[in-house]
């Protein structure tokens, strides 16, 4: 079976609002950039299949698949939508190529939360309508409860979570794609308004609009399209139980198991030694620590300490979220995982500008589907 590489990336950049463009125009821009990056291919003849990652409720359009082909150059093409996070989309594109039926596959994801006037009401549709919704409240209290139990069981602290925020917003400052870069202190996070105890306002990622397209190719054609293909060494995804009443509240089991699947495929036995850097979901500050531990980049209860020691900084031994993560780049709904993938590709190519990490060969991208899910996906990428 052929290996699979990422040979093109295109990104619009992320902003808090984008009243100047429609979602279609946003997707067209990301696609145009990605196709040019992939050896200037034409989607009208050089791309065998297309995957768009989107969710009808986010879009406000039923059967959103039907609204996708034009702006990706996929009219009369083989296209479907994955209703999931974009790393689940990547897994699907990877499998399409692995079948041998497709050599070049385009993967698209975008978020335009500024089009949603009632964003958090739509988030709350994901809560159980019988057991949870009638109780009211903002659905992000789920994050507060999880943070509380996670800190209690692992000994990581609220201060260490605040350090994640300061680090990621700082990392985002030199990232031209990021919407929420800022030079802030740990104290600013700890003093920001309590939203869902122990989550404060600054512990929570803010919505952002933007789109990303990746072009994937089989090893047979990858080198023709890009001199520097980035190889997808392993993918994994897991769904736990959706039940808030019975799930594990301390550990991100979905991330641990998804990583297990991806590491196995990639032949990684000791991730803390073999992975050079990672982009992980940091929808909430504590999620970065929880996900680091689930990805076995450190031991249980060690993520906060490593953060405090500066190990996860851009100049540390194990940089986490050099892009700025979602805290720094923004939360673009289902495209959040695509932000993680994009940064891993740019870093492995050596194209990350002033935030470029030296000597990186293996990077991990991890996503979570957000409140109130226990679904996540992991991809292991390498440049050799």
């Amino acid at each position, binding site marked *: 079976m052929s290996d699979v590489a990422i040979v093109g990336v295109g990104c619009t950049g992320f902003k808090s609002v*984008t*009243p*100047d*463009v*429609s*979602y*279609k*125009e946003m997707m*067209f821009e990301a696609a*145009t950039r990605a196709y040019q990056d992939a050896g200037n291919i*034409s*989607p*009208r003849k050089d791309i065998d299949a297309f995957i768009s990652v989107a969710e009808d*409720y986010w879009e*406000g359009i039923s059967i959103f698949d039907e609204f996708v*082909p*034009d*702006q990706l*150059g996929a*009219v009369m093409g083989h296209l479907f939508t994955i209703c999931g996070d974009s790393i689940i989309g990547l897994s699907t594109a990877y499998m399409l190529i692995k079948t041998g039926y497709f050599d070049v596959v385009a993967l698209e994801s975008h978020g*335009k939360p*500024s*089009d*949603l*006037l*009632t964003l958090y*009401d*739509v988030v709350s*549709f994901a809560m159980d*309508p*019988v057991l949870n*919704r*009638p109780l009211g409240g903002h659905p992000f209290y789920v994050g507060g409860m999880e943070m509380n139990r996670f800190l209690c069981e692992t000994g990581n602290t609220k201060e260490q979570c605040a350090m994640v925020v300061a680090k990621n917003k700082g990392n985002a400052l030199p990232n031209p794609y990021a919407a929420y870069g800022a030079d802030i202190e740990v104290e600013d996070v700890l003093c920001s308004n309590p939203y869902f105890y122990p989550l404060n306002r600054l512990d929570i990622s803010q919505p952002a609009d933007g789109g990303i397209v990746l072009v994937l190719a089989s090893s047979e054609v990858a080198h023709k399209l890009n001199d520097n293909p980035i190889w997808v060494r392993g993918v994994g995804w897991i769904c736990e139980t959706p039940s808030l009443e019975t799930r594990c509240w301390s550990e991100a089991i979905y991330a641990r198991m998804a990583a297990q699947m991806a590491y196995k495929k990639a032949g990684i036995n000791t991730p803390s030694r073999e992975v050079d850097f990672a982009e992980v979901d940091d929808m909430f500050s504590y999620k970065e620590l929880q996900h680091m531990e689930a990805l076995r980049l450190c031991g249980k209860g060690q993520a906060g300490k490593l953060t405090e020691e500066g190990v996860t900084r851009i100049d540390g031994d194990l940089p986490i979220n050099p892009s700025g993560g979602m805290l720094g780049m923004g939360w673009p709904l289902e495209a959040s995982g695509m932000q993680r993938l994009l940064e891993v590709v740019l870093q492995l190519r050596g194209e990350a500008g002033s935030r470029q990490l030296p000597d990186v060969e293996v990077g991990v991208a991890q996503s979570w589907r957000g409140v109130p899910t226990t679904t996540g996906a992991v991809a292991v990428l390498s440049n050799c």
Partner: protein
Amino acid sequence: MSEKIKHFPGEQVKNIDVKEGRIPAVRHRPNAKYLWSAGIAMSRFLEGLKKGKIVGATCKKCGRIMVPPRAFCEQCFKPVDGYVNIKDTGTINTYSVSYVAGDASRIKEPILVAIIDLDGASEGMGILHILGEIDDWKQIKFGMKVKAVWKPSEERTGSIKDIKYFRPLQEV
């Protein structure tokens, strides 16, 4: 109910039993509100409608004049080259007579919906709209010429409904 079985044991559940809470059920009214940015191409289209014009987009590569307009040509996968006004007359491509409203209730005055290929646009491109000033829908013919009936300019808001309907160009 099967014709052979005249009576089932037990009590038949009716819709009203659910509505009046005799059957366990949970009610939820979603609060989903959207405000889609019209963007580059659709903003021109909507602003055109406000002025009583139908705007199309042009692609030099394939030579098409496209309506509704778009910022990019989906066939050539490139940005469009410009925007032009299309005529507000056209021919009926296909139509239907809708006797049922969105909530599946019966409506007395059927809604006449049609795809109208607009004059000046490339073949097979036009607008989905309502037909009016037709007493009997049987008078509708394929290829029939129609013309837009606009709202007065002070009532136009930049919406597809700035056109009230399309009427037959010649009396039917």
